[in-house]
């Protein structure tokens, strides 16, 4: 079968006499990878970079005639991020956590990440304007405000992190269940989640709400996760999913304490297998010396309180969000870490439909993104899983369900959880597939699907996934034999959500704005100046 590319799109046919021909026979061809959740840019990410010179010094990248220099490891510098994604055959990455107030910073950084298309999700779950309107029951006004915010921050989706918890963290507190009251706002996390899901539907957003659950990282939290999914059942209209729970591995803990820590993967997987209104991504642990970072400030503080950490960053953002960073080394010999690794894989293997879950490491939280090939190997090869499990903590080995799971992913299924499924969940119609009309983002790996038993020879296959034979971005060859050969900038996608009537920006609103933020209304939104190569997507909302 031939794939024809013209003007950056996949077409039916091209004139072969003057076309450049790539012979991909005996190789694996996939659409360019689409990452649904990876912290690659923004204030939080950069603060993480800044506090970890110890992390950079062990992974340095030299300048070449074509590429810029930089450093890794767990949070690579911007240029290196682009190069490394491209070398793995990834062409689109979602930056899932952007505080609205710091959106300009995020976009400035995204401009410096070449070779991939990207988009950001704005943190809106604890935004005062949204909370007040949800508490009032005025979801339509809430939707209009959110449309304004999505446009004003040049973002792509609604991100909700520990709803209610971030606001409580303003005074050093947290919420611990869906029905705890958020102090000073007369509403509960349940109200926020269901309200936001309804708003998301009203706005006809291409992606669902992107949700980081309450109680993340707390033993026994799988119950909260299931409660969250149950709460969303009422909003489901039966057609497409209405919620996405991100890095669900961190929200699938059972047991009542760290000493009795165990996996809640089975309960979560069973629920997902029986329901169709949710999608999830995993946040797989890869055993790396990494840097955890999240907008969930109270969680990072709890992690710090567990002890053994030398650095703790907390960064609250007024009226909107918070944030936290802790360098963290996931170790095979640590029982909890090893069980976490196991939970991620148990979920991946027990959720039957690959269109419902997606592969991420929640970069850099579970491990840096360039560890993806290792995760692939654990998915497609039982042998690879066993080899790693053998090196894990004995107690964790006993608790792990992995020995009972025979499933081995095929290349097709792998393509779904890394491209096709993510593109579908994100509503990116022209990505994640190689059909006519799709963007010509193609990755070619040096794996012969006909002659190779990928499960048995997992090591060379794993290497091939990390070193693409070709990566093609918008019809241009950018990687050849794992070497960068061109560095186009990549686009920044953002939504122009058009509501029937725009939200009222009157003097009253401006006064409120002045009260809530320390930036003037006129200076708040992101302007076109901040996006080097924009791709505006216009959405007609139903309010």
């Amino acid at each position, binding site marked *: 079968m031939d794939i024809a590319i013209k003007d950056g799109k996949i077409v039916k046919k091209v004139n072969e006499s003057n076309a450049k021909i790539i012979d991909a026979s005996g190789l694996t061809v996939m659409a360019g990878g689409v990452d649904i959740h990876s912290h690659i840019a923004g204030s939080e990410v950069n603060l993480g970079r800044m506090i970890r010179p110890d992390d950079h010094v062990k992974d340095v990248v030299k300048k070449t005639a074509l590429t810029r220099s930089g450093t890794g490891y767990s949070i690579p510098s911007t240029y290196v991020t682009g190069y490394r994604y491209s070398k793995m055959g990834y062409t689109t990455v979602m930056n899932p956590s952007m505080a609205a107030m710091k959106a300009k*910073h995020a976009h400035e*950084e995204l401009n410096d990440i070449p070779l991939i298309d990207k988009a950001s999700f704005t943190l809106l779950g604890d935004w005062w304007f949204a909370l007040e309107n949800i508490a009032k029951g005025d979801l339509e006004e809430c939707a209009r405000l959110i449309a304004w915010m999505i446009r004003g921050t040049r973002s792509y989706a609604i991100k909700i992190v520990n709803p209610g918890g971030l606001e409580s963290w303003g005074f050093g507190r947290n919420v611990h269940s869906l029905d705890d009251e958020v102090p000073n706002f007369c509403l509960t996390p349940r109200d926020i989640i269901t309200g936001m899901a309804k708003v998301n539907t009203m706005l006809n957003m291409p992606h669902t709400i992107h949700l980081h659950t309450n109680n993340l990282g707390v033993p026994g939290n799988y119950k909260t996760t299931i409660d969250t999914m149950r709460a969303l059942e009422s909003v489901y209209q039966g057609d497409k999913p209405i919620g996405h729970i991100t890095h669900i591995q961190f929200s699938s803990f059972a047991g009542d304490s760290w000493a009795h820590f165990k996996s809640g993967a089975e309960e979560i997987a069973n629920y997902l297998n029986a329901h169709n209104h949710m999608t999830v991504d995993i946040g797989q642990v890869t055993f790396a010396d990494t840097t955890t970072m999240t907008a969930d400030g109270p969680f990072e*503080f709890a992690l710090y309180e567990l002890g053994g950490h030398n*650095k703790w*960053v907390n960064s609250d953002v*007024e009226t909107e969000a918070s944030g936290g960073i802790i360098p963290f080394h996931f170790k095979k010999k640590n029982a909890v870490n090893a069980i976490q690794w196991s939970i991620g894989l148990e979920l991946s293997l027990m959720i039957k439909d690959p269109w419902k879950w997606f592969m991420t490491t929640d970069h850099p939280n579970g491990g840096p993104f360039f560890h993806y090939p290792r995760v692939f190997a654990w998915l497609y090869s039982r042998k690879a899983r066993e080899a790693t499990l053998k090196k894990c903590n004995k107690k964790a080995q006993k608790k792990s369900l992995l020995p009972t799971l025979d499933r081995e992913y095929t290349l097709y299924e792998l393509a779904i959880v890394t491209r096709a499924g993510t593109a579908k969940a994100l509503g990116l119609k022209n990505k994640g597939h190689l059909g006519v009309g799709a963007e010509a983002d193609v990755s070619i790996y040096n794996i012969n699907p006909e002659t190779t038993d990928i499960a048995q020879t997992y090591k060379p296959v794993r290497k091939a996934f990390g070193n693409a034979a070709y990566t093609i971005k918008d019809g241009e060859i950018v990687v050849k034999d794992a070497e960068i050969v061109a560095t186009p900038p990549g686009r920044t996608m953002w939504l122009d959500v058009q509501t029937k009537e725009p939200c009222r920006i009157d003097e009253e609103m401006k006064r409120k704005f002045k009260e809530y933020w320390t930036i003037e*209304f006129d200076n708040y939104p992101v302007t076109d*100046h901040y996006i080097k190569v924009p791709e505006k997507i216009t959405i007609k909302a139903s309010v």
Partner: protein
Amino acid sequence: MTKIIKSVVCPICGCLCDDLEVTVENNEIIKMKNGCAVCEAKMVHGYKSEERILEPHIRKDGKLVPVSMDEAINKAAQILTDSKYPLLFGWTSSASETQHVGVELAEELGSALDNCCSVCHGPSVMATQEIGIPTATLGQIRHRADLIVYWACNPWSSHPRHVERYTAFTDGRFEKSEFKDYVQKLKAKASQKKVAATIRRTQVRYQPSRPQSATVEAPPQTLAKAGRKMIVFDVMKTMTAEVADYFVKVEPNRDYEIFGAMRCLVNDQELDVDSVGGIPVDYLKEIADVMVNAEFGAIFFGLGLTQSIGRFRNVELAIALTRDLNRKTKFVVSPMRGHFNVTGANTVFAWQTGYPFALDFSQGYPQYNPGEFTAIDLLRREDNDATLVISADPGAHFPKSALQNMMKYPLITINPDWNAISRLGDVVFPTQWCGIEQAGTAYRMDSVAISLKKVVEAPKGVPTDEEILRRILEKVRTIKAQKTTKENKEPQKEEAPKKRRLKPQEENVKAEGD
């Protein structure tokens, strides 16, 4: 023609107040509303200075003579490519767009790259790298903080609107302004003084004033009140201390000990001494209790910590104290960054290279080592053999030994006016005032990006620093490409005419260099 421009951002200090209202008449700022005195000094008067550089200059026979922009660019690029190891320093009063080009230039040259952070809050950055930092944007403090501690800094003079916009004298959602209380206190104090003076003059016989035994006043009872409170720790009674509810006079260079003692007290430990750093332990105990009882506390610290004995260890303990307090209540800590875009310099350098300052590209990849690649240390060891200074004035602030070494080698400067370093330069570029004549992005002290506005047109022929750097970068690349082709193609005869055509130009440049 008069126009009023609203929401203008002030390009002076790390506060980046963005509510200025500027009146422009005939391309000149004639009036400014909302800004502080420092802002007015620069935005209404300073930028029009007669000391403005209006055209590029090159030093010829010891004298600076005006030249064309092309000549200056060529000369600067030649200096930088001839140099084995240049240093690019400054950046903190430039927009982040300019800083962005700066990193690219440093990488291309394999040079050292440092910003003014190394002489101000560099130690704060290093402390953050040691133990992290619990911090917040300024609005969070405005809305919630009921205890504000200024430690070793004097915002009333250095960041004049900090107290009014972000901390004690501003209305937040959960905490209200203490300004009225402050005015009342002032009035009360004034009448107290009057009464005391009257009593002294009429009732009491004249007595010579005696030195007081205790240098630190006891904590006032008002420290236990609900609502906002402000405590100032400093070595002298500054204007900020006058405003505060409680001023604690610290013995110079004793901050480290005091932080240590405070940590003990916050963590319910006993101290075996009567006083620490000149402050009675009983007083410290009371302060610790006030901190623990606060709903939301914020510590701001200044150069008094980073540039006194202990340096980054002082800051580390300030952060550690904040961390301990977070176990009992909510506390944040934040450095009072000086120049309006010094935070931006750290930010931009970090996202491109991983490191915030003290950078080196000599190995082809970024390296970081404060003490090795920081400007003053580099200069004092005479490691670099050319310097480019942009939007900073080390001429006025660096130690003599560093400047003497800097002057031994060619110096390129990019500054809007004839400051000390511009006068010393070998190639002197004019440039626009960032935030007045040039738009761009700056990062507030809490690393929130804000767009600077262009309010008036720059004088004719004066380019932005970004443009100058881009042109230098381009020229450096051409010279390097020429060098490599020359080396590669020397034996080939066909290239001879090309070489000859290049020669005179090169000679020109050399002659100017002498």
